[in-house]
């Protein structure tokens, strides 16, 4: 009868308890229980409040040690035992008690996040990273891409962005990419995002780090590349640099300011603007240009020389950032 059996909270921290923890969460998973029962299980089996938070998917559940759902209150304490939903991810499930997790607590954390992962996949679809991958992949079915786009909160149109290291991001047309190197694809209907992604990756190859070694703009928009995009296909992995690119490298080795100076001259409307950009006196810039033109062996100040310089700079960036796909 009812009085016979002990309460759950009285579980002993031994091997038997671990088996019961596993059985508890297995049963919740079998019965397709939601997130709240899983978090409640973590709380009542350990006897402390537990919380599950996944900002990407708008998840925030907190249950006290009596099994009652409570508001989150303050931020989690870094000393609380926790576990991520995905290996290497940020902490998602916490037991609200300082100190390292004991064996039963560690088991509870592991089984609870595993169960929660399944619920999230079932209820809210794949993780955000998977949704981003889906909308950029033309081999994924159109309905799956539409669903992924909805989960990402995209409207009818969006654009793909390639971040340093070819990390993908999808942004609404009015949102700017985060700081750092970025290739921005054109804004397109969401089903055309794979093409925007291809263009974004190409644009990324033209993006500079913005350092002395790699001066220039770090955000490049694909739809402003024009004919330069054609060049990208020509500079594949292992392609030999043309002599003008070698000359740029030689100038860079000879004078630390050379590359920044040439990029400024190539990308500003006048030498006076270039001097302002570089924060040097106009006459200093004149002297430097004379010197660097000697190193290059051609003039960068007449129209054909300026085009040749712009091409050389673009080609150098393509060599620096080879196609990674």
């Amino acid at each position, binding site marked *: *009868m009812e*009085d016979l059996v*002990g*309460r759950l909270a009285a579980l002993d921290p031994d091997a038997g308890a671990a088996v019961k923890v596993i*059985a508890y969460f297995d*049963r919740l998973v079998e019965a*397709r*229980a939601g997130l709240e029962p899983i978090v409640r299980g973590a709380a009542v089996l350990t006897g402390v409040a537990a919380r599950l938070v996944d900002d990407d998917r708008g998840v925030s559940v907190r249950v006290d040690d009596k099994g009652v759902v409570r508001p989150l209150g303050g931020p989690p304490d870094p000393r609380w035992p926790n576990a991520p939903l995905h290996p290497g991810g940020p902490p998602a499930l916490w037991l609200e008690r300082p100190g390292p997790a004991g064996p039963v607590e560690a088991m509870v954390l592991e089984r609870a996040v595993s169960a929660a992962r399944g619920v999230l996949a079932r209820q809210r679809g794949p993780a955000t990273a998977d949704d981003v991958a889906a909308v950029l992949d033309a081999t994924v079915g159109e309905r799956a891409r539409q669903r992924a786009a909805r989960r990402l909160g995209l409207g009818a149109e969006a654009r793909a962005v390639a971040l340093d290291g070819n990390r993908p991001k999808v942004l609404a047309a009015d949102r700017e990419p985060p700081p750092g190197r970025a290739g921005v694809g054109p804004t397109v209907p969401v089903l055309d995002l794979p093409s925007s992604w291809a263009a974004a990756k190409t644009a990324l190859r033209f993006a500079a780090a913005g350092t002395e070694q790699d001066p220039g703009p770090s955000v490049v928009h694909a739809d402003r590349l024009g004919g330069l995009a054609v060049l990208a296909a020509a500079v594949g992995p292992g392609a030999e640099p043309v002599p003008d690119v070698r000359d740029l490298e030689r100038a860079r080795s000879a004078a630390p300011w050379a590359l920044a100076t040439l990029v400024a001259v190539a990308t500003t409307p006048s030498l006076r603007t270039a001097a302002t950009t570089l924060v040097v006196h106009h006459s200093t810039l004149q002297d430097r240009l004379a010197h660097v033109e000697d190193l290059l062996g051609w003039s960068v100040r007449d129209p054909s020389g300026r085009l040749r310089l712009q091409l050389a700079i673009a080609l150098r960036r393509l060599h620096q950032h080879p196609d990674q796909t």
Partner: protein
Amino acid sequence: MSITNTTVGPPPPFDPELSAALEAMPELPGSLTLDLVAVMREANAAQEATDADLTRGGAFEVTHHTAEGPHGDVPLLVVRPANATTTAAFYYIHGGGMVMGSNRGPDSAKTFELAAELGLTVVSVDYRLAPEHPHPAPVEDCYAGLQWTAKNADELGVDPDRVVVAGASAGGGLAAATTLLARDQGGPAIAAQLLFCPMLDDRNESVSARQMVGRGIWDRGSNDMGWTALLGDARGTADVSPYAAPARATDLSNLPPTYLDVGSAETFRDEVVEYASRIWAAGGEAELHVWPGGFHGFELLAPQTLLAQTAGAPRGPWLRRVLGL
């Protein structure tokens, strides 16, 4: 009403959290036998509340009394809000399958909590147990305790017109029987009866009894054992008194407002539903809750689950309405 010819389908599934809790509990025999009762009585004794527990840090006063009954003295435990003027009262009859339990056992906790929430006095009766004391000893002890309560209401600081007879499981059956006795013998006024998953029908043939064989807590086999301990060979025959098994009562009119609850996945489901239906049919007032996926005693065994929290919630409001608190 006869449901014995209804096709018996598979048992309703347990609520996911209850199922997980059951999984994490100590191994239980499918059906309890009399041999196990001695062991279980000892296990129950270890879980009894002490007087100190019952004072709730001084908020309640605990006193001990004795009623004279036809079978000898009946111990009564009285727990009263400290410094209160006249209060309404629960007359509480504990559970334990007619064969075990006590007036300060774990099943009484929710009644003490409800009393604390509403400012009620609790009179908890320690009736004689079967099989040592078969029918009519248990119900006559309960009735003697109720008469004593009414007679001593003034000294106890209890309003005799606002005494609620309450009981869980076997105690729910005894509460219903005590109420019938009071009605039929012109006994003490009963303002309301609260029947928590009550044990009402010795015949043990309902669809729910048959569905739940070997499942959960207190299956059909355990129920046979309890009723046989109380009634011996008379169990299931035409000779069983309604004061032993209230489902046998042919007249359920003129009963006080009645609250009944039960799980959908327990032996007692159908007899409780039928009892409520017959009260309505007789023109009475009843509130019935059938908690989906609940096994017998789920509130006691898994109080942290959402279903247990939900099941506990409507009682306070019902009492406030019925007692005009």
